[in-house]
């Protein structure tokens, strides 16, 4: 029974101890019991301590000032670098207060000791009594002044700490505000970048559309030219009296074919050619009208696509009499007389 009571007492004290809930005397009592605890009791204490430590997880975490870490590391390095190997004590405000209290107590004890000496010597030093009294009064005043100074210093220290706390909180709020605006700036910059990408895409599309428009305009110009040329051809074909001269390919290009529709009355003609090789860039084909064995130039032209028939108009071809048409390849711009190979030849009927 007595053993059960002891166990219960140990368990009760242990639970209170690990929760920090014992009064001072009970705490000391438990630490004494722990010194002589059985293995089972010691394990019980370890378990209880572990549970109490787990309870700490229920507190929400909070962030202390970043300066604390630096101060701590400085303290540790100072301790390591200390030649005597002694720890460098961290002086908290409470240690300052305690130090001030010790100074005050020493001063008070000194005064007491001094007063005791005065009492012992008072019978022998009557004549000095007044002087010592003044001295005591002066010392008392100084102690009072010193006490007041200490209290003032403590108050200033307290005020400074509180101001520092406010400053830290403001700094934190300022940093939090800065973070908020930095996030906004980041978001806006991200949106701006997206807008820039969008604008780039729009510009690219615009450029493509401009290119398409230019291409269409070019094709339209080509078509207009072609329409104009076909109108001219039609004008010639509409003439009531035309001569038709067919030209055949010669040895240099047997597959070649040519035809001249000649409106003699108006001195205009149409030249149609097919299956002629593409003319080199420094050369041209030249049409000749040969009459009485004398070739007369009727114009130059070039062939770019041998697969299709090409039509050309000849504005000035006023000749009387029967002759023949021939096509030769000449230097660029044509020659006064034929010099190159003859590709086509055909005579009027």
């Amino acid at each position: 029974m007595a053993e059960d009571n002891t166990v219960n007492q140990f368990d009760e004290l242990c639970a209170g101890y690990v929760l920090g809930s014992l009064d001072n005397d009970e705490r000391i009592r438990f630490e004494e019991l722990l010194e002589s605890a059985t293995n089972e009791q010691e394990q019980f204490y370890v378990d209880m301590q572990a549970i109490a430590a787990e309870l700490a997880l229920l507190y929400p975490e909070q962030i202390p000032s970043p300066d604390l870490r630096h101060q701590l590391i400085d303290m540790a390095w100072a301790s390591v670098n200390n030649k005597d190997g002694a720890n460098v004590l961290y002086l908290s405000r409470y240690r300052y207060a305690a130090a001030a209290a010790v100074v005050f107590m020493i001063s008070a004890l000194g005064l007491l000791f001094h007063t005791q000496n005065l009492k012992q010597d008072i019978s022998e030093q009557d004549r000095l009594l007044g002087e010592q009294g003044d001295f005591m009064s002066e010392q008392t005043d100084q102690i009072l002044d010193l006490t007041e100074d200490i209290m003032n210093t403590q108050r200033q220290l307290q005020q400074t700490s509180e101001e520092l706390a406010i400053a830290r909180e403001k700094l934190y709020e300022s940093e939090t505000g800065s973070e908020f605006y930095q996030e906004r700036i980041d978001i806006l910059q991200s949106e701006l970048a997206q807008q820039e990408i969008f604008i780039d895409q729009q510009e690219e599309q615009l450029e493509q559309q401009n290119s398409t428009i230019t291409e269409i305009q070019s094709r339209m110009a080509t078509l207009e030219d072609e329409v104009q040329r076909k109108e001219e051809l039609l004008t010639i074909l509409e003439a009531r009296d035309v001569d038709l001269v067919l030209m055949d390919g010669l040895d240099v290009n047997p597959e070649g074919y040519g035809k001249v529709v000649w409106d003699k009355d108006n001195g205009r003609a149409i030249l149609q050619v097919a299956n002629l090789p593409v003319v080199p860039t420094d050369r041209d084909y030249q049409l000749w009208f040969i009459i009485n064995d004398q070739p007369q130039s009727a114009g130059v032209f070039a062939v770019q696509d041998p697969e299709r028939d090409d039509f050309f108009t000849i504005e000035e071809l006023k000749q009387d009499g029967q002759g023949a048409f021939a096509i030769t390849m000449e230097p660029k711009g044509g020659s006064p007389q034929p010099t190159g190979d003859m590709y086509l030849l055909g005579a009027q009927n």
Partner: protein
Amino acid sequence: MLFFILSAIGKVLTQNNTRDRELMRRIASREPEALGELYDHYNKLLFGLLKPIVKKHTEAEDLLQEVFTSIWEKAEQFDTERGTPYTWIVSLTRNKGIDRLRSKVYKEQKKQSTSLDDEEVFMPLFSHENNPLENTILSDRAKRVGEALNKLSEKQRSVIQVAYFDGLTQSEISEEYDIPLGTVKTRMRDGMIKLREILAQEAA
């Protein structure tokens, strides 16, 4: 036994325990970097523990520095047979906080203090710098302890909560809540034993 079971809850916890023991060994060998690493792991948890006890931000920071100064000075006294570094550090921190709460200097100063207490800003937790996996484990641990606490009877739970979270002694609880002192002691003991059973069952 239980702390071994608790420590074996997950690989991360075991890793943390191994990591903490290595840090304690290095701190005992006078390596300031190890103290910095330990601070990085636990400063938010311990600061969160201290602030509700002493209420004031500056007091809590002052105490936090005292805690790590004590760890630096007393690391070689850490007994590996008597629990994990985590348990030792949390116990040390709570004892510091409660000692400060009950010190005459603090009580006197608290009377003279202005209304700054009311203006204390409790900062939210920002965990960007922490390992997310570690946070999850801590969160699971907190959840498990909270659930275990809720499985106690209301009477048992309330005395433990008041003692741990408000820092009241058994005598103060008895006086404050008009409960016989013996009853407070019994409820506290029974509650803690039941907590041990619940946590051990869940960990098994």
